[in-house]
């Protein structure tokens, strides 16, 4: 008699008891009345869509895929996955506006921009350029653009780091992501510094593509799937071929590789999923197991406020980054309430979402200003952009803070 155990519905949606707790914790529903909220957009709407696909509601595009509904759900319903899967299955199939294409293709745009970084950075900071981008591409003129690095992380790595990595007795592979490669190579260098100090060499994957999170949220599913397949091939080569764990520095990339690939892109990664993890978690484990010890030289007092990104909250891994920060002498950590900053990856760049994005983040910005912290720490690059644009505080990755104080 095992009928109940066997009656499992896709994304657990039959488990929804309509309690509405998800909608209480939805950052979008709280400020945008055009969005019907996760219960309606997710399990309720799914019943209708299963009956007739044209019940698909275009307002589902307002979901920014933060997954806070899933974290709040007492019944383990994968509400966010239901909504995103519905967009993939029933939504507009050719959603390739120039704007969405540019925002989604972080990889392509990054590789075009980095050789001309000084020019690009100056240009996108100019009012007339931002005005044009607003009018022509519907990218909000008030949005501050992330700066591009002059030269990518991978080119630096090949020229200056690759050879030295071989000398370390232990090795890990690193999925650096678009942000480290095109915007902030320093974070990749910080990671190398930390891992090297612990006796680990850092290898790049054979071939790394953008994880695809922005492609998924901008409706470019086929491309997302292709890139995911490339990434999974490379990850398998590292994990299975060379027995290397794959570490990452971006919470959203990590979440996409581990959970969005199987849930949204229907790519089975069960054989390697447990070997993909955030570097902060990897370090935490090494230190807890007594396999590594960090030595610090700079112990000047620093007040750090940690912001938990949405996908970090979903993974439940904020603890590792926070604990690592707490291990640094002189660092005093306060943990900000876990709430969405409003950027949602490319969501907040879009003209139609700008106001909503800033309204979602407002309580967090207020808490940051009142925290008395010297610096905000977070594991997500888009949260960093949003926090630096919307508050008076700098925002850095926990590993940057850690690396800068290492002996």
């Amino acid at each position, binding site marked *: 008699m095992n*009928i109940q155990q066997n009656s499992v519905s896709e994304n657990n949606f039959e488990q929804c008891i309509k309690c509405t707790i998800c909608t*209480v914790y939805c950052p979008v529903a709280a400020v945008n009345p055009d969005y019907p909220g996760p219960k309606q957009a997710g399990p309720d709407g799914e019943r209708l869509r299963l009956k007739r696909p044209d019940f698909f509601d275009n307002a589902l595009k307002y979901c920014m895929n933060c997954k806070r509904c899933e974290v709040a759900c007492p019944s383990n319903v994968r509400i966010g996955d239901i909504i995103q899967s519905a967009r993939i299955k029933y939504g507009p199939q050719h959603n390739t506006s120039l704007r969405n294409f540019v925002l989604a293709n972080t990889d392509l745009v990054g590789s075009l921009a980095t050789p001309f970084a000084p020019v690009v950075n100056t240009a996108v900071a100019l009012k007339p350029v931002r005005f044009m981008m607003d009018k022509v591409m519907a990218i909000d003129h008030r949005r501050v653009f992330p700066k591009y690095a002059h030269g990518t992380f991978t080119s630096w790595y090949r020229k200056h780091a690759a050879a030295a990595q071989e000398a370390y007795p232990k090795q890990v592979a690193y999925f650096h992501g678009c942000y480290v490669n095109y915007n902030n190579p320093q974070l990749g260098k910080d990671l190398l510094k930390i891992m090297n100090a612990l006796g680990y060499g850092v290898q790049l994957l054979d071939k790394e593509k953008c994880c695809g999170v922005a492609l998924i949220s901008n409706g470019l599913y086929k491309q997302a799937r292709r890139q995911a397949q490339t990434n999974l091939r490379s990850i398998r080569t590292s994990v299975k071929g060379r027995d290397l764990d794959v570490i990452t520095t971006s919470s959203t990339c990590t979440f996409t590789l581990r959970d969005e690939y199987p849930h949204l892109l229907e790519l089975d990664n069960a054989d390697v999923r447990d070997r993909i993890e955030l570097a902060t978690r990897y370090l*935490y484990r090494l230190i807890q197991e007594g396999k590594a010890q960090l030595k610090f030289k700079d112990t000047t007092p620093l007040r750090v406020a940690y912001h938990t990104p949405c996908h970090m909250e979903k993974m439940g891994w904020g603890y590792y980054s926070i604990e690592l920060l707490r291990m640094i002498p002189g660092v005093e950590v306060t943990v900000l309430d876990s709430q969405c900053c409003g950027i949602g990856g490319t969501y907040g760049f879009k003209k139609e979402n700008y106001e909503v994005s800033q309204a979602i983040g407002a309580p967090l910005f207020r808490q940051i200003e009142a925290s008395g912290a010297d610096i905000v720490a977070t594991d997500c690059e888009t949260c960093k952009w949003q926090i630096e644009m919307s508050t008076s505080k700098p925002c850095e990755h926990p590993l940057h803070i850690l690396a800068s104080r290492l002996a």
Partner: protein
Amino acid sequence: MRFDTVIIGGGLAGMACGIRLAQAGQRCAIVSQGQSAIHFSSGSFDLLGRLPGGEAVSDPVAGMAALAECCPSHPYAVIGAENCARYAQEAPGLLREAGIRVAGDCRRNHFRITPMGKAKATWLSIDGYLTTPQVGEFPFKSVCIVNIEGFLDFYPEFIAEELRKYNIECRFGSFNHPDLEQIRRNPSEMRSANIARVFDHDANLEALAEALRQQATGCDALILPALIGINRNDSLEYLRERVGLPIYLLPTLPPSIPGIRAQQALQHRFRALGGEYFLGDSVLSSEIEQGRVARIFTANHGNIPFEARRFVLATGSFFSKGLVATFDRIVEPVFGADTVSRPSRSEWYTLHFFDRHEYQAFGVRTDNRLRVVKEGAVLENLYAVGAGLAGFHPVQEGCGAGVSLLSALHVAEQILKD
């Protein structure tokens, strides 16, 4: 991850236990699969409203002593009448320190009013709710019951029907606002939390005050659905002051705004005391070594287990899947603990919804220190608290919140004494 105590379940019992342990300096973690049933709170905490035979209880402490005599398997009897009386004195302080403003007396029940207008005996009520010292002793002779236009989870007619039985003169009022039109575009989402957010804005609250002032002329008091103040706690005082009349809240259908606030207040308190709260995670497996739980493994944390000297099972009852009913038995899914139930499914329930169903008293088997029993043997460092305990009927006896709070404090004391 190493902790002194790991609590599985972040509802009222888990949180109360965690707060007490963290207060005593323990390093605690709570692992919770989503938000808890506190979101469905009536705004009151029941200790004991009726004895199993149906006799009404006016003095819960005396009632718990009587229970200890007649029902030795009731959690209050297991905890012991004297201990219960002591914890019942302590518990309101724990809630108030978290910022939940409750009033009530464990020696004398008062009455809360349900969304249907019925009076129910209770122990503690959150500030602002309509309560009466005795059934029918309302603090007004005439009242205006105001609803928000289009809000379907509140029933002024039913409430008036009950109040009129006690010769209370009832009028109806309603309120609308352009900002409410916005949420009304999704009629199914015209729910408490969405409406409450509208009233968190000063201008909207002022508009409500103005409308209430006009509609209440000639009345002694106003009744509102508990829809105000989701992110601020001064809304009710503000309205009372602006309107110049007593304003009382009545619970709505879920989600409950005061419940949401209570949940967040407890969570904040636990964290402020140094507790670690892991939300949205579920326990997948555990390792038991020599009669003790050594570690648990969760969905989110995979190969990094939670290790602790003690574990507390606070996963609740059927709603939160702390207990799962299969066709032929009751399962405790986290540890596979022994459960107290009836062998034949036909004995689990009757065909009358409001009966005292046997399944409601099913739960985890424990010893007299509330330690969990598995395969007939006590697990020495695993305690059970809250709705998942066996031997009580939370609805019929009106004792759900009491069992959660008192068992939580009892287990915290056991852990700290060891």
